[in-house]
């Protein structure tokens, strides 16, 4: 990287901060950007700035959205009485792509991770309880990852919902233990939702 002029070095160093991008790839990307049309480069830069400026969390489910309320919470054809609780937006996206689910979501933006100091106060559990206490919810499907953190989060939510007269289900196995929903294939994911079990 030494051979490059300062602005290129800076771009390479910024790009290598991205996940999965090493210095080699960053250098290739930087060179590509350097050769690209001005217009294309401007669009890329703007879209990066835009995403940070415009994307916020849905007031209801904390999904990423441009509006106050996301398109799923807005969609009256979806069953607004079912909430599927996920750890991250990418798990939600994976379930959406599997195509078999027609309820709503709640994105926690994390999972209980005691060793990392992530406790209930760091997750969006209060928002979930508020939704449930607001009435109209008949089922909560817990679709946190099947690893220690996801399981602990599921156990916590089950305890929080005890005595609330709501059907609580957990996505079925088939999703491998220790796995991450976003890497599970569509078929397995749609089956695991279909065969969710009561808690």
């Amino acid at each position, binding site marked *: 990287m030494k051979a490059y002029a300062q602005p290129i070095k800076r771009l390479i160093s910024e790009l290598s901060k991205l996940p999965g991008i090493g210095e080699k790839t960053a250098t290739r990307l930087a060179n590509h950007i350097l050769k690209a049309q001005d217009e294309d480069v401007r669009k890329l830069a703007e879209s990066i700035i835009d995403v940070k400026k415009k994307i916020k969390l849905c007031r209801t489910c904390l999904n990423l959205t441009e509006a106050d309320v996301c398109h799923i919470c807005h969609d009256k054809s979806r069953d607004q009485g079912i909430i599927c609780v996920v750890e991250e937006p990418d798990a939600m996206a994976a379930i959406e792509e599997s195509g078999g689910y027609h309820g709503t979501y709640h994105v926690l933006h994390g999972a*209980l991770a*005691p*060793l990392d100091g992530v406790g209930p106060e760091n997750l969006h559990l209060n928002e979930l309880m508020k939704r449930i206490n607001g009435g109209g919810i008949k089922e909560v499907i817990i679709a946190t990852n099947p690893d*220690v953190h996801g399981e*602990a989060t599921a156990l916590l939510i089950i*305890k*929080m919902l005890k005595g609330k007269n709501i059907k609580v289900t957990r996505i079925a196995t088939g999703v*491998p233990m*220790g796995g991450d929903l976003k890497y599970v294939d569509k078929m397995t994911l749609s089956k695991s939702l279909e065969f969710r079990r009561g808690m």
Partner: protein
Amino acid sequence: MTRESFKTDAFILRCLNYSESDLIVTFYSSEFGKLRGIAKGAKRSKKRFANVFEPFSLTKIIFSRHRPDALAFIEACEIIDHYPDIRTDLEKTLVASYFADLTDNFSPEGKVNIKVFELLQNFLLLLGKEKATEATLRFFELRLLKVTGFEPALDHCAQCKIPLTNGNAYYFYPREGGIKCFACARPERYEEPLSAGAVRTLLLGKTMDLDKIKTVSLSGALAAECREMLVSFITHLLGKEIKSMKVMEQIRRMGLP
């Protein structure tokens, strides 16, 4: 250059996302003490590491490294015990996480201490079988302090050396790692005493048979005294709060069924 490979049983203490696909895992191994290694592709590959990196799991690992103090390269890792009875219980999961957290914090890398490994193994087995109680927590703390060389002196007053006497009140001094009797301590009004009963319970817990621990009912004021003493000592020794303890307390404060 071919590197020599080593094989050992090891508990997973902590996993850190290193990149999109790699993990840095901290182990406590029976033969090498605490060691840190990189697991390439751990977050994605289903073949090489089939979801094995989970806190407090017992595993068998094969690793290599350039030097004893270098980051190990994890070549293979297979599960010996996932502790399903712990993982399906929130309280037990929190306690087991705390055990792993404490073990990590009290273990310098590369120092072999089979007693630490055995302690963790014994207490995880116990936790799988029995309810997670205050006694389980306190006795683990106490025994870990003991095997790592930080055992508090509880059987006599640190100053006048008079042995622990029933009915008396004592004061614990984290800096000195011991208790003092009322006469020697000359406590300020805000200092909370530690009853001789609490100290006795802790002394018992240090050596008591594992299967007897379930018979110890540590609750109410006695539990609070023991907790305060050990947690303040641990916080003092480490110079920080233990994260998993904070999470455990957050959840307890929620007062869930």
